């Protein structure tokens, strides 16, 4: 069997197509911005794991990180960049193409 690269799975964004990073991007796509702890509680991961994946997304230019203080309490705000939103929209389109190609079931495991 030869691989000619025509299957939609070849267009999946590798940065987003990882379980935790997908959850992060999906959550941020629904909001203007979210605080780090809100994201952690929503996705149900540890602080360190979330931080690690946010660094990856930030380096890819998908996520913007803003740090500040409310009183004496440090707050970290996360939001998707325009590039991140476009990448997420494109990623979802590819997923839907994969689903359509496979008739509702998917064999596009990563």
């Amino acid at each position, binding site marked *: 069997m030869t691989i000619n690269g025509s299957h939609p*799975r070849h267009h999946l964004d590798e940065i987003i*197509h*990882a*379980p935790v990073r*997908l*959850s992060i991007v*999906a*959550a941020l*796509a*629904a*909001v*203007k*911005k*979210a*605080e780090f*702890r*809100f994201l952690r509680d*929503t*996705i149900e991961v540890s602080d360190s794991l979330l931080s690690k994946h946010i660094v990856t997304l930030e380096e890819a230019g998908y996520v913007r990180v803003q740090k500040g203080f*409310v*009183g004496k309490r440090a707050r970290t705000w996360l939001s998707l960049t325009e590039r991140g939103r476009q990448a997420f929209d494109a990623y*979802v389109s590819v*997923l*839907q193409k*994969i*689903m359509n190609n*496979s008739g509702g*079931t*998917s*064999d*596009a*495991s*990563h």
Partner: protein
Amino acid sequence: MNAGDEFTAQQALGEIGRVGREVRRSARWGARYLVALGVGVGLYWAIVLFADPGLSLVAALAWFAFTAWSVVYACRSRVYFPAFTRLQWIVTGFLLASTVFNMWIRGYVREGEGALPVLVGLFGIVFAAGPPLYGAWRGQAALGEDKGPVA
């Protein structure tokens, strides 16, 4: 989604839908706040415009407490939604305008006779309470429309 590094397109879309629903559920607090704001400001102006003048001080203290709570609520908020972020400026503008209007008509409503002062006072209450309540409804509607790629 408990998958390791491998997951299917169906799982990915399912996770996107799940996370989106979870996040949008948090927006209910924004709508509840606007409802509380609308009810509170309506009661405040109803007391100031129509009730015994002695109650105005009580209303002012209650409004001060609500404002203080609003500041705490805003500072503790952990997520901002585009729908409510847009609405807050519109609602704030209407609240300021209605405050100026109601302060201007206050003397007329309290001392006037007949039905017209009453109607003007009622209009002032609706002018103040209506926008936050409408904002709550519009905000919830916008969140419901924006279901993301997967409902």
